[in-house]
């Protein structure tokens, strides 16, 4: 970095702060203009691979790439021979959030803001240099402190604090019927989170809003720091989904289905990899059979395999065990355990309290579209064991099912 004085001076004078505040609502084009005018940056617009790399910025000897959407871990160094450069990758910046963090990072050798919750965006430097994290727009005035953050390990730790899924004030309605009401949830990286609720409680509607299948009436959903609304494709690329009712084109064979979905997620898979994957999922013998010839359990296994084909950061499973025989169910939970071991995050809905208690790090109970409670299964039992509604349904030691029935009522739902 050659000109920290210039950048820091601008920030110290607060002139940039006001411009940067504007950048929260600005788009990439305006951000580039800002860099050009404020820092005298040479801006080179790039087509890059696909539309990933938006522009290359050079301020003195420093070189930045602005990357939209897809974050690639390699091939992004813009250092010219003999020049001191660093490369920052900025993930999806439709609101100019990342550009502000970049400016702060340029001034202070990297910055981090950990105040408050709801961190939504990370700037990752794959070469172990400085980095920064910004909070959502509503707290724009306070974000991006200019204190140095120190080492790359600390950066990684802080990046891991970003929730993999942040649902904020989500309301979903079908006409005049409100299915989900002002729901707030955050799921941490590596967490297996169970969403419990009676029929019609709003579980599938919540999942559908996260999956992008329906447009919420209000509220926001962020996946891995990316707004689902503003960065739909990039956010969906980070999710793997197993829907409640699984269906693929009935004419296609399993191999053809896997090839289709690998293509849709941008995963290069040859015949050999596809067959190996299907074999691992216990579907090797069915690889050339059409989907319609599979049993229910085999269909579920294929669905889970397809959901995980791109090794997503977040896996969404809507009642994954419904209709499965005990063997298939056991295999599913084994798969989920393996995902947990590999650091993956899962949001699942289930009607099985035993399974939720056994497999989930945290569970939330929702009813009539509203979140009733959320905690670890043990903590939930602890929190509600003296609730008269729970005591009334408990026989002996209070279980998660007692808490569930106590809070949601004994009436049978449709």
């Amino acid at each position, binding site marked *: 970095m050659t000109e920290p004085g210039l950048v820091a001076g601008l920030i110290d004078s607060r002139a940039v702060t006001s411009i940067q505040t504007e950048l929260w609502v600005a788009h990439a084009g305006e951000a580039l203009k800002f860099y050009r005018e404020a820092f005298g940056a040479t801006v080179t617009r790039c087509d890059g691979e696909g539309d*990933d790399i938006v522009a290359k910025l050079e301020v003195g000897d420093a070189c930045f790439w602005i990357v939209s959407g897809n*974050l690639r871990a390699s091939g992004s160094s813009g250092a010219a021979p003999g020049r001191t450069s660093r490369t920052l990758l900025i993930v999806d910046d439709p609101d100019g959030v990342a550009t502000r963090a970049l400016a702060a990072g340029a001034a202070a050798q990297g910055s981090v803001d950990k105040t408050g919750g709801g961190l939504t965006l990370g700037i990752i430097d794959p070469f172990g240099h400085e980095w920064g994290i910004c909070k959502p727009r509503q707290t724009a005035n306070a974000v991006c402190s200019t204190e140095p953050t120190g080492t790359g390990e600390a950066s990684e730790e802080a990046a891991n604090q970003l929730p993999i899924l942040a649902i904020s004030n989500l309301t979903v309605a079908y006409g005049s019927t409100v299915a989900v009401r002002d729901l707030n949830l955050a799921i941490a990286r590596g967490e297996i989170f169970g969403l419990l609720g009676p029929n019609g409680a709003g579980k599938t509607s919540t999942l559908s809003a996260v999956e992008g299948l329906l447009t919420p009436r209000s509220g926001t959903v962020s996946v891995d720091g990316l707004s689902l609304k503003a960065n739909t*494709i990039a956010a969906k690329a*980070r999710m793997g*989904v197993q829907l409640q*009712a699984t269906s*693929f084109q009935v004419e296609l064979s399993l191999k053809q289905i896997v090839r289709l979905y690998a*293509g849709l997620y*941008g995963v290069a898979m040859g015949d050999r990899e596809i067959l190996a994957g299907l074999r691992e999922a216990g579907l090797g013998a069915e690889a050339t059979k059409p989907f319609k010839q599979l049993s229910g359990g085999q269909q579920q296994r294929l669905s889970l395999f397809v959901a995980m084909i791109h090794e997503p950061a977040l896996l969404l499973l809507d009642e994954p065990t419904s209709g499965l025989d005990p063997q298939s169910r056991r295999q599913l939970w084994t798969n989920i355990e393996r995902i947990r071991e590999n650091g*993956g995050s899962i949001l699942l809905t289930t009607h099985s309290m035993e399974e939720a208690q056994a497999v989930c790090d945290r569970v939330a109970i929702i009813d009539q579209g509203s979140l009733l409670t959320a905690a670890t299964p043990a903590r939930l039992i602890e929190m509600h064991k003296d609730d008269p509604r729970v005591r009334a349904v408990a026989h002996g030691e209070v279980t998660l099912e007692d808490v569930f029935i106590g809070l949601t009522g004994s009436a049978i739902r449709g």
Partner: protein
Amino acid sequence: MASSALVARPSLHLILTSLLRADSLALLKNPRRLLLSYLLPLLMLLVTGSSKSASHLGGAVYVIGLSIAYGLVSASLMGYAFTVARDRESGVFQRLRVTPAPAWTIMVSRIVLQLVSSLVMAIVVVFVGIQIHHVALAADEYLLVLAVSVLGGAVFVAIGQALVGLVKSADTVNAAGRILFIVLILLGLFGRSGLLGSLWESISSWSPVGVVMSLYADVLNLATWNGSDWLSIVACVGYLFACAYVGIRWFKWEAR
């Protein structure tokens, strides 16, 4: 699982290629759709093989046009529309929509494939038709047949799209498609003959099947091309836009 930094965003090209390949395979493995596309037009050509029977229907080129038009109608109303409705009902579209593929790519892939399929069917029918009826075609007439096939294919795909836009249930789409198909066939066969009177003859002439049939007949015999053919093109474009608007405006991705 991969860290988010390693997650690739697929290019639009890769998405469209993947969808087109899968939809092509699904089409080729669906005997019902192939049968609907080829059976009726080829059967019609064979039945009207003698010049006497062809002359009852307006001559050889008219029969070829009629055959292609009916092939397009059956492929679109009972093939395309039913498959879209079935896949919607079974949740195939929902499964595709949770991937990074933009929703429009899912439908564009299907429509493009149906148009290509219509084009191939038209080429086959014209080829068989000129063999059976001994019609000689110039190079420009072949090209015009292809152009009319694209336009006619688009009109009937748009009608099929309007059908799945207005009707949610796959069974109802199937039934409505069959009824519409029969109505259009009868209108085309008997309306144009004048047996039902001049009003029906006029309605038949300006029905979707009527205008497409007229275009085929006149591009297969360019000497008969006249001002009403331009009006037929305008009518085709009108049907295309009107039905596409209905089919897109009211289309729902799920049957519920």
